[in-house]
């Protein structure tokens, strides 16, 4: 087998036993890897509660990982989300995916529950368990150095132990498997960390062809202003997008009450540059290096984090944003959900949070102290308990990120129908609606957006399965990546062939959510976006979204995706895609 190792590591924490499983090659070809294979292995168990011992926590790399294919150092973590109840997956960077592959594994499937707090060390095909009871309650910074000696690592912090529903698994110190509370699933298995080190190299079918497709991809990246341009994310990180959402009047401000933040100019990427003098850092196998680390070691916030700890909280102090980001990384919780839940709290209590208050509330959340315990359940549960669920800016209980849907209608639809709740990364319409890639579309119309969203979801399902980074698709396309895939695996494949697999992978997620009771009622946006205008100005008008148009686009999406008009999978489409209802 080329590209894949052909082996999956099964670990049962209840018995501390492990064994290797060799999936059929058809399974690999049908699901590729990463998100695709993880979804395949999750499906039979997805109806269990997230903390059921049989609920698997799944880590998968893809065929391109640890090869010279650009941006291929990533992997997927997947389980059922404690926050949303939907499938919960995250694409994560750092080194873990590459080491996993080099250790000879395409993936790890963790089940069971340890009776005491445990750590796992994997070195090639050897797996060792050790007591981690001493690390209980430790913030990540207190034991990161210790773990780093043992290779790449994944760990949880105090937030997971406090049952924060948006607790992250943190990789290599500051790469998060975030958004869905996967850290809480990790912790529910009584696991504190996993380390991994590998000495192998994956077999590549045709190195020359891979070199050629690598050059084609790098050339497109170099020609992409968003990626490698003077103002692109290679220089400024994802923070580069901050000025753009500001100038397009789609910057979520004060819990999405407004879409323009007066102080944004003082909180932009350039401001961070001047104060922190960052250097580039990034995942194994990537040349974009979007992670920015300040001269004294401060990890600078990503775009979403910047927005949610500044504009969303009406805070113009960037050092507080950096501190809040640091706390979330150290405690192991999702910055988007943490920021948005604070914004919801601020709106409901009528407070403008001071910088001190932001910091103390985050610590209260992470340690389940006082009001922090309620906030740690996410904004939906908090606002519902408060009697005002509409103040929670969530889709399927997942807090929305930093693009106001009134400023980009494809994004609005993408948020609503995403299989993991309010997430921008499934369809990522920001490419065409804001960044003009591959070509610009009119951001204030739903016309044509249903199919654009559907195709983009399929593309990104493939990207997360190969596994590559979504950013590079601001330059390259599956046309070039399918050549890399064929060069690595020896399986001739076109971009369109891969898209068909992406469709299968995404539909499988719809089936899993449907099995857990999700319907079209859940594919919806908070009421605010249909009732209230955003902050118009500078010749840009931001009216509320017209509900009728949204519903029509959603209906179109269901038709195009092959779902019934209730958003449920159909037997015909299930069969056409080679999937089954029950496993």
């Amino acid at each position, binding site marked *: 087998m080329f590209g894949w190792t052909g082996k999956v590591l099964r670990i049962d924490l209840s018995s501390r036993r492990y064994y290797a499983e060799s999936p059929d090659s058809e399974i690999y070809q049908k699901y590729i890897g990463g998100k695709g294979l993880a979804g395949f292995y999750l499906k039979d168990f997805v109806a269990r509660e997230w903390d059921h011992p049989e609920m698997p926590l799944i880590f998968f790399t893809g065929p391109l990982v640890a090869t010279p294919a650009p941006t291929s150092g990533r992997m997927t973590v997947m389980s059922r989300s404690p926050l949303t109840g939907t499938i919960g997956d995250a694409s994560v960077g750092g080194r873990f995916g590459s080491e996993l592959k080099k250790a000879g594994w395409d993936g790890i499937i963790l089940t069971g529950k340890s009776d005491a707090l445990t750590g796992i060390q994997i070195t090639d095909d050897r797996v060792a368990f050790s007591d981690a009871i001493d690390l209980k309650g430790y913030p990540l910074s207190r034991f990161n150095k210790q773990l780093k000696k043992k290779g790449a690592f994944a760990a949880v912090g105090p937030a997971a132990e406090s049952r924060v529903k948006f607790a992250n698994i943190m990789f290599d110190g500051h790469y998060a498997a975030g958004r869905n509370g996967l850290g809480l699933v990790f912790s529910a298995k009584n696991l504190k960390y996993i380390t991994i080190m590998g000495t192998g190299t994956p077999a590549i079918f045709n190195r020359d062809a891979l070199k050629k497709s690598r050059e084609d991809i790098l050339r497109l990246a170099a020609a992409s202003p968003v990626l490698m*341009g003077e*103002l692109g994310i290679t220089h400024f990180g994802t923070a580069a997008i901050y000025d753009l959402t500001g*100038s397009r009047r789609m910057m979520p401000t004060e819990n999405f009450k407004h879409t323009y933040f007066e102080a944004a100019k003082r909180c932009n990427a350039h401001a961070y540059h001047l104060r922190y003098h960052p250097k580039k850092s990034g995942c194994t196998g990537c040349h974009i290096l979007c992670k920015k680390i300040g001269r004294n070691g401060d990890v600078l916030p990503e775009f979403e984090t910047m927005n949610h700890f500044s504009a969303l909280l009406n805070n113009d102090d960037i050092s507080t944003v950096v501190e809040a980001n640091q706390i979330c990384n150290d405690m192991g919780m999702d910055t988007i959900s943490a920021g948005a839940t604070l914004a919801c709290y601020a709106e409901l209590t009528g407070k403008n949070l001071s910088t001190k208050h932001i910091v103390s509330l985050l610590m209260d959340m992470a340690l389940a102290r006082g009001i922090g315990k309620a906030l740690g359940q996410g904004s939906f549960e908090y606002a519902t308990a408060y009697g005002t669920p509409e103040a929670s800016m969530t889709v399927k209980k997942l807090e929305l990120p930093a693009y106001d849907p009134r400023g980009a209608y494809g994004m609005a639809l993408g948020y609503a129908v995403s299989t993991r709740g309010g997430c921008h990364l499934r369809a990522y319409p920001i490419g065409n609606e804001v960044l003009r890639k591959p070509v610009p579309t009119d951001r204030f119309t739903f016309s044509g957006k249903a199919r654009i969203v559907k195709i983009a979801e399929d593309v990104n399902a493939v990207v997360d399965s190969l596994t590559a980074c979504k950013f590079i698709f601001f330059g390259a396309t599956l046309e070039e990546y399918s050549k890399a895939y064929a060069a690595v695996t020896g399986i001739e494949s076109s971009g369109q062939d891969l898209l068909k697999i992406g469709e299968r992978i995404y539909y499988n997620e719809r089936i899993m959510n449907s099995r857990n009771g999700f319907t079209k009622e859940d594919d919806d946006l908070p009421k605010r976006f249909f009732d209230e205008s955003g902050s118009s100005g500078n010749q840009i008008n931001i009216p509320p979204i017209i509900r009728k148009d949204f519903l029509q686009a959603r209906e179109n999406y269901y038709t195009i995706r092959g779902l019934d008009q209730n958003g449920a999978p159909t037997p015909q489409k299930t069969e056409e895609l080679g999937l089954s209802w029950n496993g």
Partner: protein
Amino acid sequence: MERLIYRYEKKMIEQKLVLPGDPVLAELDTEIVWNRQHPSIPVLEPIFSKLNINSLLFSPPAEPYRSIIDHLAECTSDVITLKDNETRTFLHDIPVIHTFSPGPIINRLKQRKCVVIPGHGIVTCGTVSPEQTYVNFSSVLFSCFVKYFADYLTDAILGNLSREQRDTFDRVNSYLKPFPEVDVHLKKGPFSSEDAVYGAISEAGKPIVNYGFVDSVMGNISYRYQNTLYISQTGSFLDELESCIDPCPIDNSSCTGITASSELPTHLEIVRNSAYSAIVHGHPKFAVIMSMICEKEQNCAFNGMCHVKCPESRYVRNIPIVTGESGTGPRAICNTVPPAVIDHQAAIVYGHGVFTAGEDDFNDPFYRLCSIEKMCREEYFSGISHS
């Protein structure tokens, strides 16, 4: 709101890429909408059921493209390979099939953005917008034109021309319009307000396209005013730049210009290091063709890598030819173009296009671009008649 399929149909006709009545465009959300009834629709419609796309274009190209592309396609059974920047970066190569039926078209569009069927036309597709079908179509025409003329002159120099080649060339040549008399008076600078800058940039883009020097999607324009460079956005149309201009502070203090043209670094380097404030970049065809004509190519150690490694200092008359790829990085034109433009007020990029600069307004760079194209066309035909 005008449907995009009509918008791009109109654009292709205006730019004489196709003849009125020829282009067939479709877009699909839940239902396929065609721009017209046409006998080719039964062949084209099944493509949507097999590919994850939302737009499709089929059209025979107008002359001289039609003769050129049919000729190139008939010389190959499989793909047209090209070496200009446009193809290298975006198209990679151009697939060819010889039957106009759904199966073969689908097979090739699975791999690439376009397919050529000699005697019939070109099919292109998009996954986001009909705009992609238009951009791809336009790129195919440009790349094939450049390849055809460059190969012909090279063969002429080497004395390799057949009777048949000459006949085709005569036919193609008869379709070429004479070089136009240019009479354009662009706004006089220096400009003293942001509004004036926006107006001047939008104004300058139009004649470049309307005179047929540069295709709509192939270029970018900028102007420095105070400490900001105003530049056309990535993927914008030179003849429709209103609302497609990004202000980029010279000190990078704002990233709003992240949507600016991919050649922003080159424009910035020029204005940071010279008194020039108006810059025009475009891909006029004969300048691109002449940049690729090299008598030493066959025996050169860098043959095949000319676009980045050519060791010669080359000129068309007094205009320098430089190497480099689009965008940024050690091989990029932001390293090679600025010094050449600062010294010569213009530079031709190998297989790619032309940069020109002026101090106060766009009159100078506009006329310079025209005269370079005119000169390259003259050089081309004098090359043909001397060989």
